[in-house]
């Protein structure tokens, strides 16, 4: 059973995109989501550019050492409940920059990640899939929470 709350939540995922030192390839694909071709606003998503008003963080790049604190800061400023999507190979594993002295190698080294999107660069279609996957995870979480509340 789904509460009204979680229904609303799923219908209004506001996103924030943060670049932690990517080659900008993935960023362009993320921005493509907003264009008429992909138009994620039809799912109610809005780009807020502000962690305080975001539900979903779209993170690109391998998280350079300099970026680490900023990333953590932004994550902390995002109010619960929230989702983190690591967009692209860099953000997922840091592979393209493997062994570089200045990167952390993946978002999950710094903050918990809910969905990993593969690809160098990741494709917008896959990003939309990731969004849907994230939301369904959310639904599960909400259902789980409901069950807990009932039980």
């Amino acid at each position: 059973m789904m509460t009204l709350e979680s229904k609303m939540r799923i219908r209004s995922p506001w996103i924030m995109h943060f670049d932690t030192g990517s080659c900008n390839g993935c960023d362009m694909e993320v921005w493509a989501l907003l264009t008429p071709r992909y138009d994620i606003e039809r799912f109610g998503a809005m780009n807020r550019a502000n962690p305080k008003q975001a539900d979903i963080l779209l993170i690109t790049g391998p998280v350079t050492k300099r970026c680490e604190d900023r990333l953590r800061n932004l994550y902390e400023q995002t109010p619960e409940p929230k989702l983190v999507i690591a967009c692209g190979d860099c953000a997922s594993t840091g592979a393209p920059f493997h062994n570089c002295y200045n990167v952390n190698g993946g978002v999950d080294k710094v903050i918990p990640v809910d969905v990993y999107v593969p690809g160098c660069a990741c494709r917008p279609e896959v990003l939309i899939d990731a969004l849907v996957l994230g939301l369904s995870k959310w639904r599960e979480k909400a259902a789980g929470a409901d069950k807990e509340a009932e039980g």
Partner: protein
Amino acid sequence: MSAGELLAVLLFLVPMIGAVVVLVGRSVPVIKVTVAAVTVVLALSSVGLLLVLASRSFAPLAIEAQALYPLSPVLIVADLALTALFIIIGWRLRSMIIAAAAALNLALTVLLGAWTGFSESDPAMLIDNLALIMALITSLVGSVIAIYSFRYMREDPRQPRFFAVTLLFLGGMNAAVFSNDLLWLFLFWDVTTLCSFLLIAHDGTMEARDAARRALAITLGGATAFIIGAVLALEQYGTLSISDFPVAGLGGLALLPLSLLAIAAFTKSAQLPFQSWLLRAMVAPTPVSALLHSATMVNLGVYLLLRISPSIVNAAAINWLVALISGATFLASNILAMTQRNAKRVLAWSTIGNLGLVAMCVGISTSLAIAAGVILLLYHSISKALLFLSVGAAKEGLGSEDIEAMEGMRAKMPFVSAALFIGIFTIVLPPFGMFASKWIISSAALTFPLLIFLLGVGFASTLVYYFKWVGNILSAAPGSRRVTLRADPLPANYKWTLGSLMGGAIVLSALIGPVIRYLVQPFIDRHFILPVGTNDLNIFTSSGEFPVLVLLLLVGLIFAGLAIIVRPGEEEMSKPYASGEDFDFESRGNYFASEAAVMQGIKVSEGAGVLLVVLLIALPIALEVM
């Protein structure tokens, strides 16, 4: 001597006697005791006078010159002596203008005296509701300012001089508003001029002296306009008694006395193009500014306009000019206030603008407008005194009057911040007193559509410059240590004086219904037919209605309720968003215009003012010639 007469005499004589005692006593304890005693007498007598007038259902109280017998010859001597004193001051300041104006004043005073055989027109003093309101403002607000000065001036080496002049100022002001005889009014008019000159020069610096000289030159010039106006009034109307001025059928040269008196009023109230003295007077200590802006001085100008409003209202040839001059002042001063970053200068421009609004009400010349003007004058005084005194207290804590220096002040000085907020809210926001009068003015201005354009822009500018300031005070860094209102280390003197003004401002706002009915309406009723009917909770005009008390309750509920309900826990507090960085930033307010642009703006508006004032004199003459 009846009770009313006695109280009236007390109201102006006691402060003057107090001034002498202070000058003779000189030591701080003597000063404190004297000033405290005088303020008590002032407060009690002014309220007593209110009760006396209320008991005669607000019929004006006339005091014949004979009733004051020993006083009237003294006053004549004082009049001549004072005018002569101005000549000496002008001579010592090496200012030909001041000396010449004073000499002219002396000659004309003697001429007038000779003409009337040195006998006053009866009644020499007339205490109606307008005078009563002014006396209440001067006595109550002035007393609070005097008490506040105990603390503010505590390290000043020239305290006797300061307090003596302050008391004289209050006495002179009370006497001026009671006077019905133009010559008496002229004497006390000059007393306030002298007092403002002395107080502005108080610090003794070059800048202060310059400012004082400028103030003296302008207000003395105004006094010359006043006395010429008085001579012409005697010639044209055959009387020096203001209450006997003709209220209808004025045309041609008969308008000239009114024009000249209006110009005298403009100089006192610092309207364009005479505004410069009030701005420079900001060099004086803060209580002086408070005194000039709220309890005395500038009020006298618009008081004179309101006093002769029955004549002006019917002088259709010139009243539109009065409205235009003051309307232009209102607009220009509010726009200029947006460009200032010194709190006192912002307040100075705002005073000029608000007095412009009062004068504009006289120019609009409907009974509704004049009622609005009186209400505005009353509420403005309290709020402005509160604001000035708060700025003074803030300066003591921060060492600066700059608005930028007040950044985040609410965390450090919550009491003063609260005082500033209440002062500003009562000036700007509904449903407090000032707002009610602005609302009435807006409906009244419909009879003069040109003015609504000035009003619209002026009101919006008011919001901008006040809330920029409020914003700076509010902008306290999150997580910074807060001083609670109760633990605020502000001196008790400031807490009491600011607190009483805050309470006064709010209570009077709630009582606006009775204030209009008992204080304002009797004055209006005597001269006009007033379409503002009021029951105590609501004000109605012909074109709308305004549920004051409901709104006030609403505001109280909103703020009190929210303050109680909203208690976010620690875990809700977060860091400010700065793109993921952690840092405090330097903020700068928006002041829109460069120094040069501001100077140019002042020049342009002064030019317009000069033009209109010249027109104000030329028009009656032109009408006469045609």
